[in-house]
């Protein structure tokens, strides 16, 4: 099993922490799924009060989840903004892991791959362990690896769209070109079948958020996603059969009685 910067994950499901109906439901979803990683962000503290503000309550909640924390640079549109956010996240969460997002388009939230490579180089040189949110482009992947990344996270579809795997050929090609690199399909997964398919392609994990948080029953959907990701992972390990165009009877023809 491929490791993520030396870490073996006990589940191929990475789960976001945003958009849940309540903190309790968020916690239930993590408990139900057994997700190995939680993505988090940094935002302006909304004012100190007797409880220390909203962020302090969230801090307590994610600590109680007992999962690996993966801070993100979501919403950053420039290299400087992403690098500064990463430094703040490293201090806040006490981890070198950073999910690096440098957004290039506000409609699709497509990564700015040029800025991404630049920021990845700066952060990797500074000791960060970068999880770059990227596309399936092989050239960009190569540059990210040369910049120091040891994990790649290509999108399945635009963030929050639930469209699934838009470019199976591209993701398959990425897997084939970088057989030793841990790969995560990040973004676009809407259904457990999408998660299973990503894993069947030989990916090492899936990262999703909206599909669980916006489900009618987030905990149930989280469990379904975890089971699907695990099923896909097992299938990939099991070396699936080659599809064929024509039918081939599975029941032996030899020994069939002559009854017509």
């Amino acid at each position, binding site marked *: 099993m491929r490791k993520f910067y030396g870490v073996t994950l006990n589940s191929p499901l990475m789960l*976001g922490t945003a958009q849940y109906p309540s903190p309790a439901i968020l916690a239930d979803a993590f408990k139900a799924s057994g997700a190995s990683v939680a*993505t988090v962000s940094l935002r302006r*503290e909304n004012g100190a009060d007797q409880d*220390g503000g909203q962020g302090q309550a969230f801090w307590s909640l994610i600590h109680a989840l007992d999962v690996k924390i993966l801070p993100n640079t979501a919403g950053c549109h420039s290299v400087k903004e992403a690098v500064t956010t990463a430094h703040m996240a490293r*201090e*806040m969460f006490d981890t070198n892991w950073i999910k690096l997002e440098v957004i290039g388009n506000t409609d699709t939230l497509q990564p700015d791959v040029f800025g991404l490579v630049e920021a990845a180089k700066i952060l990797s040189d500074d000791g960060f362990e970068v999880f770059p949110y990227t596309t399936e482009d092989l050239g960009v992947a190569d540059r990210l690896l040369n910049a120091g990344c040891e994990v790649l996270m290509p999108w399945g579809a635009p963030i929050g769209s639930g469209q699934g795997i838009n470019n199976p050929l591209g993701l398959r090609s990425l897997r084939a070109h970088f057989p030793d690199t841990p790969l995560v399909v990040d973004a676009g997964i809407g259904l457990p079948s999408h998660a299973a398919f990503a894993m069947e392609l030989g990916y090492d994990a899936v990262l999703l958020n909206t599909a669980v948080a916006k489900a009618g029953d987030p905990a149930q959907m989280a469990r379904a996603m975890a089971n699907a990701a695990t099923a896909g992972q097992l299938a990939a390990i099991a070396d699936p059969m080659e599809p064929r165009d024509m039918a081939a009877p599975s029941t032996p023809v030899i020994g069939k009685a002559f009854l017509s």
Partner: protein
Amino acid sequence: MQINVNGKSCQIKATTVFDALAELGYADAKIATAVNEAFIPEAVRPTHKLHSGDRLEILAPMQGG
């Protein structure tokens, strides 16, 4: 002095980031800080001087995808 805290104008007596955080009620909070778009590590807060018009960002852990 007048500074900007998380996008809002704010009057403070403190002259360092560390003292400003205490004055604003964040003494024991889990936060990260930046001044004028530059990261200010926790260890530097006591010595980092604030000036009138500075932009102080106080960030906290939040939900993210």
